[in-house]
């Protein structure tokens, strides 16, 4: 199975483990945790073995719905591979780094595994219908993760998130249906296969409509200004592991979609519409950074800084130069790691001082030196200091945006400066000065599993920063 159908196991391993979690008879919570962890470890190993063996690309196709021209078609190329490894790594780290909550039962764990499987499907799908299918499949578990296990205001923020994303999804579905029917009028059969759809010749007004149909869905999912309204609320309400999945992985579904579908299917329209998207991205970079400056809640800070960082990704993509797109792919990977690390750290802080707010704590560095050190490393990465992973990506993106227009590069560059401002300000408020905490605290420094997670992250941060070509050798992809 592994040699003839190399991609299916990625989808099936999490599903099998989720089945195991659902039906196993043991009452112990630690067993659920073990299953969750072993599933993510297995998928991580499997994705590394794919990374090792990949030459060119792999396509797997199965019959699914021939009467509507839909096939279960998966394709692994270097872009998908990058996303797959990112997903496996983030899943592994978040399952390892977030201690399961008492009320989190087997359903909770199952939802995460379903979500993981759907994410693999999204990044592998080589059929538009299949892509949409997995795209929605990834949404549903998240709705329940936040809606059932989230904070007090979960109902409202979940509803907002659901309606925002479904609005985007429906516009994408319209575009997909139109393309499928267009394939029938031009070629005679219904087909939603990626390669078939690429061959369609589109008349000019339609093409730009359907470019926007796809792009809207992706911009909402990332999110970019002006569709970011759901993001801070949801990140605040989500349980910690849910927040990691949202910011590190589900946001990347959007950027991946932009590259694969908006740019891949409509290259002409992408060229025409690039100025609008670049303007939005640049605005998001600056706007996100300014908003992040005034936040006191750690999770809201991460939400706005994510808005700013993903602005760089979109900016890189829509310079439409090989350099910019490569930088954007670097950045997708880097930002996933950064967001994952930040949320793990925020949760770790919360466990110690029972608050996410910077108003409630001061001078933690004196009591928690190791935690302060890891926070400092992450802050350095967030402000893209040379030698860290974000520098590699953002520098490349700035370089390519300079060739697009120097003014854009200058504006985006101020975004980097802003990010240094707000990150360091937040670090200073939390860690430096004399110790003070508002709520009951149980101070203890990093626990063993947190040390493991943080050291893995540190290796990646400096590894990618110093030797980017080693990490991305297989990922030199262009659409």
């Amino acid at each position, binding site marked *: 199975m592994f040699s003839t159908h190399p991609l299916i196991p990625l989808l099936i391993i999490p599903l099998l483990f989720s089945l195991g979690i659902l039906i196993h008879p043991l009452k112990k919570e630690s067993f659920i945790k073990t299953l969750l962890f072993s599933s993510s470890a297995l998928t991580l190993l499997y994705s590394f073995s794919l990374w090792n063996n990949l030459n060119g690309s792999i396509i797997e196709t199965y*019959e*699914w*719905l*021939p*009467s*509507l021209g839909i096939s279960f078609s998966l394709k692994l190329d270097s872009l998908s591979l990058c996303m797959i490894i990112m997903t496996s790594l983030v899943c592994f780290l978040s399952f390892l780094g977030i201690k399961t909550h008492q009320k989190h039962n087997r359903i909770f764990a199952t939802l995460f595994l379903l979500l993981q499987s759907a994410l693999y499907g999204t990044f592998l799908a080589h059929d538009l*219908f299949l892509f*949409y*299918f997995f795209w*929605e*499949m990834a949404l*549903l578990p998240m709705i*329940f993760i936040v*809606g*059932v296990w*989230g904070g007090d205001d*979960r*109902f409202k923020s*979940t*509803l907002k998130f*659901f*309606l925002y994303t*479904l*609005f985007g999804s*429906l516009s994408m*579905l*319209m575009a997909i*249906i*139109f393309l*499928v*029917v*267009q394939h029938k*009028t031009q070629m005679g059969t*219904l087909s939603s296969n990626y390669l078939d759809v690429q061959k369609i010749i589109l008349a000019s007004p339609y093409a730009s409509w359907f470019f926007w149909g796809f792009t809207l869905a992706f911009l909402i999912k990332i999110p970019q200004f002006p569709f970011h309204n759901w993001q801070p609320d949801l990140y605040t309400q989500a349980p910690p592991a849910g927040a990691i999945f949202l910011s590190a992985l589900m946001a990347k579904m959007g950027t991946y979609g932009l590259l694969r579908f908006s740019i891949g299917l409509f290259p002409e329209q992408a060229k025409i519409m690039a100025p609008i998207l670049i303007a939005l991205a640049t605005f998001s970079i600056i706007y996100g950074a300014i908003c992040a400056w005034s936040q006191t809640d750690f999770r809201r800070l991460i939400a706005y800084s994510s808005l700013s960082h993903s602005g760089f990704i979109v900016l890189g993509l829509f310079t439409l130069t090989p350099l910019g797109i490569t930088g954007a792919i670097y950045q997708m990977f880097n930002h996933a790691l950064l967001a994952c690390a930040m949320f793990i750290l925020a949760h770790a802080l919360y466990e110690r001082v029972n608050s996410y707010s910077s108003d409630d704590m001061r001078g933690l560095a004196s009591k928690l030196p190791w935690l302060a050190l890891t926070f400092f490393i992450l802050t350095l990465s967030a402000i893209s200091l040379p030698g860290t992973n974000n520098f590699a990506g953002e520098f490349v993106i700035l370089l390519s945006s300079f060739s697009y227009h120097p003014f854009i590069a200058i504006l985006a560059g101020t975004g980097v400066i802003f990010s240094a401002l707000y990150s360091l300000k937040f670090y200073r408020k939390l860690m430096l000065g004399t110790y003070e905490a508002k709520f009951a605290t149980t101070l203890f420094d990093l626990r063993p599993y947190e040390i493991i997670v943080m050291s893995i992250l540190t290796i990646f941060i400096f590894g990618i920063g110093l030797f980017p070509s080693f990490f991305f050798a297989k990922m030199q992809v262009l659409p």
Partner: protein
Amino acid sequence: MNQILLNPIPSQMWHYLLPLIILCISAVINLFLSPFVKRGRKFIFIISVLALISSISLSFFNIFRTDGNFLYEMLSYDRLSSFSAFSILSLGLFSFLNTWGNDRKDQLLAEVHALLLFALSGMLLLTSSTHLILLFIALEIMSLSIYVMVAMKRNSPFASEASLKYFIMGGVASAFFLYGSALIFGNLGTLDLAEMGQLMSLKSPEELSLVLLGSLMILISILFKVGAFPFHTWIPDVYQGAISPVTGFMAAAVKFSSFVLFIRLTQNLFFAKGFPYPDLISMLLAIIGLATMFYGNIVALRQTDLKRILSYSAIAHTGYLFLGLMAARFSILGYQAVLAYLIIYAFSTLGTFAIISKIKKEGEKDLPLYRLQGLAKHHPFLAGTLTFFLFSFAGIPLTAGFIGKYFLFVSAMSLIPLWVILLSIMAAFISLAYYMRIVGVIFMKNELPNPNPFELPSLPWTSVAIGFCACITLVLGVFPEKFLNLIKFIFG
């Protein structure tokens, strides 16, 4: 000619009539058994289930037989009618299982089971005729049984109110149907739908003004039966007033058979070759369809009662189906999409109302949304299936509803104006808000401090019906290929 007169039903055609005959006989036996309150019940159950299962299997095999016309061509059995019989009877079986047990909870008379079978036989007749008078009779058999079923809960004034409303409005609609048929007969000299296209193409449009008037009247009565705007007003009250199993039966089976009638009328009258004004009908369908969608979805947003929300959502779903009917003017794909969507919708609806009849307490008039808070904690199976059905209505992947909507939009795209499709997608988007609201109340709101709101009666057969409907919705959502091929075969 003499041969036909002497023997109107050729012997090899009996298998087409057998389901109908079995149903009628068992309904009559049920009527006789129903006075025996204690011992009769068991027999009623066995006889009805056996009759339904045998006629379901018979009509399934009828799908693959050759077409048959008999009784002076008043009855015509083709693949569509056999398939509709199959689906209607399956819906009937699940409705019967769902009513079983609930009839005691709501203190119904045992005649309700006989009435259900009578209504089913009316539906079978309705889907297998092309003769306007026979259609009218079938429509009346179906409707009269349902009026009584709605009023069956005798101690509830709301049920009587609902039934009276339904009866009066249904009577007016039937009058429209009859008057329309008379006008068409006056113009064309025939009541057989199959001949109309040919007869109309012999005449010039000026000579066919009565046909236009007649077909508009028939259209009105059909719009009433399927519950389209502005003839929808009976739906919320009747759905709320009737007991939930009956509501489920109406929402699923009555809507299904009325739409099959609609398909026949569009095939043979509205979009038939000689019909002089197909553009007018298209325009009407587009406007009424959009109005129905938007009205249903927007009004549903403000409702607080679960049954009312679902009744407005039923109105909205009627609107989506009009897209397929419009597309059917140009391509057979439209009919296929309508039929597929109908079946999927019918089974989800039946399942939803089965769940409601399980949750609803004895003597309770409404089922306000807040009653559902904490359902997920106490009855995860019910909460999960209800959510699944709601997602199916909303058209979210993995459920059959998504396949239905996808097929419908694929068939309609590029055949009907793009603005109609865009607006209906907008309407579908609006509907997501209230479906998600119900799901949110079930899963995301804290439980109310209410003593034992979830001590539900054990209704094992209702649970069986729910399970079957959920399985069908899941299987058609994930592996719909066989089902779609069957639908293709029916219109092939």
